[in-house]
């Protein structure tokens, strides 16, 4: 297995080794759309509420994961979601992955409304 370091959430595809078909690659655009729809559906139009945020973040990740598994691709998935109240605080996140650069990938979507930020990351690891 070729392994490469990648810090941050960028996905690089080595075209010269690209032999697998569409079904076995991590398509960032497709995943990005799925995430946006899941977030909008779960928390769109709501203001930050401490008592509901637990349920919201659970809904976002579960909705994303069920849409991803419906794609039927040979991948394992990890979905993470961060919801933060807008209060002037600073938040920094970073990810580092040890995987196979030619088949695996990640996608991060940042969403916000007037009262909160929502950051969702999807990591896809080929089987």
């Amino acid at each position, binding site marked *: 297995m070729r392994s490469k370091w990648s*810090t941050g959430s960028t996905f690089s595809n080595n075209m010269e080794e690209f032999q697998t078909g569409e079904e076995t690659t991590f398509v960032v655009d497709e995943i990005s759309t799925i995430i946006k729809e899941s977030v909008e559906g779960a928390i769109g139009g709501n203001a930050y509420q401490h008592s509901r945020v637990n349920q919201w973040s659970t809904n976002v990740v579960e909705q994303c994961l069920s849409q991803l598994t419906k794609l039927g691709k040979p991948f394992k998935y*990890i979905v993470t979601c961060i919801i933060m109240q807008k209060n002037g605080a600073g938040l920094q996140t970073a990810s580092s992955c040890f995987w196979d650069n030619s088949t695996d990938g990640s996608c991060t979507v940042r969403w916000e409304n007037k009262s909160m930020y929502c950051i969702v990351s999807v990591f896809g690891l080929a089987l």
Partner: protein
Amino acid sequence: MEDYQPNDEVSFNADEASNSVKECIESILGGVDYNQNKVNQWTASIVEHSLTQLVKQGKPFKYIVNCAVMQKSGAGLHTANSCYWDTTTDGNCTVRWENRTMYCVVCVFAVAVTL
């Protein structure tokens, strides 16, 4: 990875991972206050060092290390994870750390590699 001899199935050891991540966080954030200019560097260092320590264990896993550093200012923060994997071999561990001025949450996900 090329030297690994496949014998029994190995499962993820969350305690070991948790300890090595705690040491990484302590070495980078121990004794410092939240600094907007440096936080970018800090999170990158934490994930890279944690990943290096995990890979040194030489186990047949792919890893994802995620780190969030947040300034303490009364804001609410909630994180959730959902994973679609093989529950017998794969696993995760989350380490929460704080000091006077900031919180740090590091999540490690380990996915077994089928050789």
